């Protein structure tokens, strides 16, 4: 009887082996019955298996994590206590919350507060502090926020503008970070396979104050503070902000896919991609980064997509990869994942949004710059790298590009006012969600978040606030939208919700990096330098191309590029320099004297109210990388669009006809930022550099000696 089974004692006897199958099926069913409200009867294929396994896995991992966190918490606390003493022992607050509103203007804030439009800011003014906050030279966001976080002047953090110039070729490069592909490649057939990591070098120097907090055992949540790319390690979490590139490596390149034939190129920030229509279906593509496997640059990867327009319903169905979406004219899609495949398994992961502009007679689709996918980041955009993944999983994909609001698309009339605002506020809502999550997670320590919406919206809609802006002269005054007052009211409501979340043991600071003024008139400083004999063009030329094309460097003593910097063509420094180092100081003074008070012949107003020799405003080891002079434009004026791009034109002054109608890249004395505080603070002429030492001091830490900022103190009754 070997191999024979024992008789089963059940009511019908021989079920033994079959019962194994039944038991397995029943086991799956029982698990289902125990957890799901519907009866499940058997193992129903891999779906059930995955569901059960995934769930158990999630719970198991969570349990392990939690157990580890709980079990080791006392040990870690003890370790911290021994190593760093009691981190909060000398702190005046258990938490500091800093809300950064890029470009919030103190004069507008005061005006709207007095009009009763900003009750929460008014409450802060009444209960705590409201004052102007002096900004950096120049008053540009990457410069000012770098000073905010490091507590030092630009001579010590090395950021003077968005762009810096390469003295070997007079071309610009991004001042905040340098991204280099892997050095080694192996050639196999048509592929050149990269080996090693992409190298990302931070150009901003100095140490953000949250590093000092972390060293003392104080946790920080830092969200979208500009010039935090690449993210640096510290004790806390950080999501990088302004200066994070898009997937192409640019600071934002939108794409207009259109059936309308045009050979026009966008001046900046975007490309036009033809759309082919065949049998009612339009096909186009999203331009991506260059292939990492190509031997030469310019081998652009692309993601094709098709559009099926429905002129009657005024909508279109868009198919990109496995994603299918239907958009009405004037509607944005959600963030859509796109994968640029180079072959051999190399894929760049991005996200973008589609905006349907038109379906008849022509078909036009705007595609936002392809952002680095926060849920699958190909470049580090957060610290730890899992923080952006965490946020993406929690709230869905979000804009990661530094300058996420597509101002160029509005400038080029690819987006209209409404579409641009929709984009801005969509990004803003994502940021708000991140802030409130950080507030929930950071009950002790530092929580700081910078909102860019204030800057972008003021840049693009100042024309409606100005009495007589050239870009809005055709819009009757009574038809101008109240975009900027509404913007401030929206931020005020946000501040109100934050105030509800905090108690008296939390310090709330509301800061901006600079204020705002109208940008109605452009100043082409290169044109002025040309007309006054400091810059020479090739013989026969009256204008140059972008980036000094046709400039005769052998006869040029000074040039400008970027927003406020003026450079001398110094022998031994610039590749084709002609100014003797011994004559540099004299030339600086000469230019300062001639440019200071430069008058606009059309109106008689002063176009330049201050020219600053950088040696007198900067101190630090990186001063030599600074421009030689910083030009402070008067209110209503700014460097012209051409001048910024290193172009010499015939006219020095001209109207600014673009939607980009407000600006702050002027005389820094005219555009201070704001400082609101929930507690009364004592400070004489507070400066943005003071924030870092103030926070360290309030947490009981001594600011490092190299800080330029001075810590504010609390008013007597507060302390």
């Amino acid at each position, binding site marked *: 009887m070997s191999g024979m089974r024992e008789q089963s004692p059940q009511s*019908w006897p021989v*079920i033994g082996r079959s019962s194994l*199958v039944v038991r397995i099926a029943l086991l799956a069913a029982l698990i289902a019955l125990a957890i799901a409200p519907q009866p499940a009867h058997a193992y129903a*294929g891999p*779906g059930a298996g995955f569901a059960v396994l995934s769930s158990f896995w999630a719970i198991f991992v969570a349990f392990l*994590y939690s157990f580890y966190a709980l079990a080791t*918490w006392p040990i870690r606390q003890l370790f911290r206590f021994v190593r760093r003493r009691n981190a909060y022992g000398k702190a005046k607050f258990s938490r500091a919350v800093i809300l950064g509103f890029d470009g919030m203007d103190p004069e507008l804030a005061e005006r709207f507060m007095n009009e009763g439009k900003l009750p929460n800011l008014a409450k802060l003014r009444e209960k705590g502090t409201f004052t102007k906050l002096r900004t950096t030279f120049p008053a540009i966001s990457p410069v000012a926020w770098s000073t905010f976080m490091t507590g030092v002047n630009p001579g010590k953090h090395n950021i003077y503008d968005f762009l810096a110039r390469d003295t070997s070729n007079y071309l610009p490069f991004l001042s905040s970070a340098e991204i280099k592909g892997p050095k080694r490649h192996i050639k196999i057939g048509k592929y050149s396979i990269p080996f090693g990591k992409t190298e990302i070098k931070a150009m901003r120097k100095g140490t953000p104050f949250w590093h000092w907090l972390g060293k003392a055992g104080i946790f920080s949540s830092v969200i979208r503070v500009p010039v935090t790319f690449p993210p640096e390690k510290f004790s806390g979490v950080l999501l990088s902000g302004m200066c994070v590139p898009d997937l192409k490596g640019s600071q934002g390149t939108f794409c207009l896919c259109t059936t309308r034939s045009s050979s026009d190129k966008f001046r900046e920030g975007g490309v036009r991609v033809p759309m082919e229509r065949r049998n009612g279906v339009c096909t186009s593509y999203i331009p991506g980064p260059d292939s990492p496997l190509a031997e030469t640059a310019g081998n652009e990867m692309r993601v094709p997509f098709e559009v099926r327009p429905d002129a009657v319903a005024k909508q279109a169905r868009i198919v990109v990869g496995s994603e299918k979406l239907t958009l009405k004219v004037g509607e944005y899609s959600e963030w859509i994942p796109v994968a640029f495949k180079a072959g051999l398994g190399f894929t760049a992961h991005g996200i973008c949004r589609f905006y349907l502009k038109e379906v008849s007679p022509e078909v036009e689709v705007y595609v936002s710059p392809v952002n680095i996918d926060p849920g699958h980041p190909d470049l580090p955009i957060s610290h730890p790298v899992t923080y952006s993944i965490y946020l993406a999983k929690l709230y869905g994909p979000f804009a990661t590009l530094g300058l996420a609001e597509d101002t160029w698309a509005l400038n080029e009339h690819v987006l209209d006012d409404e579409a641009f605002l929709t984009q801005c506020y969509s990004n803003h809502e994502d940021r708000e969600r991140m802030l409130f999550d950080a507030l929930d997670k950071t009950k002790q320590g530092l929580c700081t978040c910078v909102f860019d919406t204030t800057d972008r919206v003021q840049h693009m809609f100042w024309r409606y606030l100005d009495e007589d802006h050239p870009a809005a002269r055709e819009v009757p005054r009574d038809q101008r939208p109240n975009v900027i007052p509404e913007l401030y009211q929206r931020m005020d409501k946000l501040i109100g919700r934050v105030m509800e979340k905090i108690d008296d043991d939390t310090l709330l600071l509301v800061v901006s990096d600079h204020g705002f003024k109208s940008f109605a008139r452009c100043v082409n400083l290169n044109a002025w330098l040309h007309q006054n004999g400091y810059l020479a063009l090739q013989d026969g030329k009256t204008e140059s191309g972008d980036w000094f094309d046709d400039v005769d460097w052998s006869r040029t003593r000074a040039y400008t590029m970027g927003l406020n910097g003026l450079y001398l063509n110094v022998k031994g420094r610039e590749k084709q320099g002609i100014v003797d180092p011994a004559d540099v100081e004299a030339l600086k003074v000469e230019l300062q004297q001639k440019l200071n008070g430069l008058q606009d012949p059309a109106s008689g107003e002063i176009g330049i109210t201050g020219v600053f020799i950088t040696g007198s405003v900067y101190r630090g080891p990186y001063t030599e990388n600074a421009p030689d002079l910083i030009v402070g434009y008067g209110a209503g004026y700014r460097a012209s669009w051409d001048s910024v791009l290193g172009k010499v034109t015939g006219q020095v002054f001209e109207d600014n006809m673009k939607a980009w109608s407000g600006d702050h890249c002027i005389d820094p004395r005219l555009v201070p930022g704001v400082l609101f505080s929930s507690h009364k603070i004592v400070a004489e002429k507070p400066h943005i550099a003071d924030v870092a030492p103030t926070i360290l001091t309030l947490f009981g830490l001594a600011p490092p000696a190299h800080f330029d900022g001075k810590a504010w103190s609390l008013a007597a009754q507060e302390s």
Partner: protein
Amino acid sequence: MPALLAVKLFLLTSPLAIVVVLSIVIGLLMVVLFGYTSNQKAIGIAKDQLKAHLLAVRLFQDQLHVVMGSYGRILRGTGRYLRLAFMPLLYVIIPITLLIVQLDRYLGATPMTPDAPFLLTVKVSNSETLNDLSLDLPAEIMMTAPAVHIPADNEAVWRLSASKSGVYEVKVIASGHSVTKVVRVSPELSRVSPVRLRGHFWERMLYSAEPALPNDSPVESIAVNYPERAIDIAGYEMNWIWLFFILSMVAGFIFKELLGIKV
């Protein structure tokens, strides 16, 4: 051509090959069906939220309130995810259950082999009937031991043996009523029915491959103890259902990735 024939023959007769092919096909079908019948967006969100809360535990491990809060959210999220994942299973549960039952007829047990003894167990309605119970065996099947009566269970057990391969009907005569039970003797893969039952609709659906016994018959069930089939995987023997479970999961995992279906 002979190689092709050999492959075909292998596929038709090898239980391992059958389980592998079936697992892949069913893995694919189930994943596709799951994709069509589930709320893919909601499942995606539920899974993402779960991952987020797991990451939160790691990212904010020094903040005990975050760790404990996240743990609670993970438990709630798991419940939500399971609810979403099991909804579409209702659509596939009947066909897949029936399919597994049918496959089990072929793969769960091996038919008897010639000259190997086996047990035939007859359960009757009452113990008196045991005294009026006999077998009528075909010529190829012989009784190798006298019947053993177990009055406490109303059962009688015979030890039998078949002299050669074939499909035989063993006749059971109880109180003048006769009923039959198929006995399959074969070295090849074939459909077997381990039990014939009276009534018990669901049990018959799940465990029997023969028509029901007549309601007026005193016989409740006739069972043959076919040997359990074990499939050899690299020297490790396992029941086909485990192999099917593992392989269909692997296939499902591959197909869900290829097809972009969230499970």
